[in-house]
């Protein structure tokens, strides 16, 4: 019975894929409307954060030795910030997606999954745009530093890493969107915790690896192997640590199944509880 329900959910979603595309496009259009730089912000946001962190960690305080980073810091930070921005902006959109579309939730029927999915879709477009700049940075540092780029088979693993990230975001996004619909506190809690998460996910600073209690707690964060996997494949030309990556994949799949099933079960109450 449950299997049938899930299957129906997927076919229904496929029927509405054009709507998903339209809402994704709407999110992008609105985000960059009346903005001089427009979609360039997709690049400027992670780029400016990269510059900030590069300044902080290489000029303002001398933390480079502590960080023991063997690639140019700007590259290290940017390759962390691009998937991180995708993650945080995408989920930030998901949290509000149902509440912000109250009018549609109460007046029109279509699968409610479309709302969080379109937020992930629009931040994915940003992600793709920001990724092109990564290539530019890599070419620059290839010539300007001790670091050099080599074509290698590990690059083929990048789409799998991206896929796992999207699965993780879909599961979390549905849970967050639904939770915020019933309890508006979720949005506030999300805002604080996403800040903290950034610093324990090896986005701009490596996580501690000294066997301390904190290090063990942080090791449970599925984002650490995920962002590490991008760096391993692209900057170091090696496959990621498979145990860590398998853990992340497992967490992502469990969240997807739990999140989606729960979302579907609750979705018929959205219109009356929003």
């Amino acid at each position, binding site marked *: 019975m449950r299997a049938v329900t899930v299957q129906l959910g997927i076919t229904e979603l496929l029927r509405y894929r*054009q*709507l998903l595309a*339209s809402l994704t496009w*709407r999110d992008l259009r609105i985000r960059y409307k009346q903005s001089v730089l427009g979609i360039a912000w997709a690049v400027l946001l992670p780029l400016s954060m990269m510059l900030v962190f590069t300044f902080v960690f290489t000029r303002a305080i001398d933390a480079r030795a502590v960080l023991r980073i063997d690639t140019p810091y700007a590259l290290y930070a940017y390759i962390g910030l691009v998937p991180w921005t995708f993650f945080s902006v995408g989920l930030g959109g998901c949290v509000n997606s149902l509440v912000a579309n109250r009018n549609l939730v109460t*007046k*029109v029927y*279509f699968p409610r999954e479309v709302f969080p999915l379109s937020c992930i879709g629009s931040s994915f477009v940003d992600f793709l745009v920001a990724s092109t700049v990564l290539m530019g940075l890599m070419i620059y540092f290839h010539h300007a530093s001790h670091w050099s780029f080599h074509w290698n088979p590990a690059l083929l693993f990048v789409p799998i890493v991206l896929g796992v990230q999207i699965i993780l975001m879909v599961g979390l996004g549905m849970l967050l969107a639904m939770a915020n619909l*019933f*309890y*508006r506190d979720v949005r506030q809690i999300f805002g604080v915790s996403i800040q903290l998460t950034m610093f324990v996910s090896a986005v701009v600073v490596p996580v501690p690896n000294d066997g301390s209690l904190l290090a063990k707690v942080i090791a449970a964060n599925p984002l650490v192997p995920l962002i590490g996997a991008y760096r391993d494949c692209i900057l170091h030309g090696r496959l990621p640590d498979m145990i860590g990556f398998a853990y992340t994949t497992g967490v992502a799949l469990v969240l997807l199944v739990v999140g989606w099933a729960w979302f579907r079960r609750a979705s018929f109450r959205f219109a009356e509880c929003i």
Partner: protein
Amino acid sequence: MESAAVEFSHVSKRFRLGESHDSLRDLLSSGLARLAGRKPKTKSHLWALRDVDFSVPRGEAVGIIGPNGAGKSTALKLLAGILRPDEGQVAIRGRLAALIEVGAGFHGDLTGRENVFLNGAILGMPRADIRSKLDDIVSFAGIERFLDTPVKRYSSGMYARLGFSIAAHVDPEILLVDEVLSVGDAVFRLRCLDRMHTLVRQGTTLVFVTHNLEQMQSTCPRAIVLEQGRTAFAGPAREAVGFYMTAMSRAYADRPTDMQGQPDGQSGNAELVDLSFVRSDGVETAWALGTESIRVRVRFRLRRPMARLVVECNMRASVSDNLLSLNSGRDALTFDMPAGVHTVTLRLDRLPVCSGQYLWNVRMWDADTGTTVLDSPFRFPLVIDDEGRATGILCVDHEWETGDGESVVPTYAAASRDTIAPAPTNADHESMPIL
């Protein structure tokens, strides 16, 4: 029954009154209360729909009417899948488009064109369809010049016209429409109705929720009357309207402070008990054919005897001037009545007016002194059905002639109820699909 496009079987829907948990603090406190073995505060519920049961065959148009809060919109949201019933089942067979609010999903920052594509997608239209129908949609809405202007700069009429126009071009198999034609000007409203007729002719199943009984009757051959979440009547639209109007006027009469307290007149000598409309068969009604005889029955209480009482009945189409004002004084008739409750009845052989709702009042005065003793507000509605013979205000006897003076069709003169509109036979009733 298997071909029914829409099936509503024994559906009940309830809503929780008061706020649910709106913050985690509430959830925590009620969770703790539950852990401590105390029962959380019991919530009161409101049954918005109770055991409502109907079905609409493919290609039929059905109206849902009823007073505010009767559950009409809830029924439509259940059909649209926005809400889920607490009991019973809702089955929809076919591609469905629901127009519950015009322009729901419009975004002010997007242009008209962008919103057409977005809203079309929201209503389930494939992109290629939207592209091919864009011109039709835009010209139907009459916004060609503003197609590339953000809709936040549109007037509310333009906004509504574009919203309806998109929905009208979805070409669904089942169309749900909720009270959306109250927007826009009269011309646009007519075009919307026209478009709905066209869709129904082309085989679309229509469920139409409205307060506008005329719009409903002109579109739907059958209707359901909801009252306080229950089906009060289901059957031919004209009878449904009659049922509804009768129920409404009875509801009016049930409010004594409304009805009898105010219209005391200047002297306070008389008090209106009731004003009702009675058909020739003696049945009280709130609607009648313009061709049948109707009695206006006024019941009132005199506190003191009156020697020369004049009774006047007035009829208006709306807030405008009187269309009809008949008083007994002009007919050289005054009433000599003791104190107590009396009934005066005015018999009209026919009411030659066009279809619509007409409001009545009653006035009384003393013919000797001219003192008004009773002046009621215009609060008594009577719905007249001219069976589509005329538009305008009057629906008078007439016939058409050709050049040689031969009369061709005696259109209205000799009309009686039976010859013009044969009452539905019992067989019709049995096959009535929405019952």
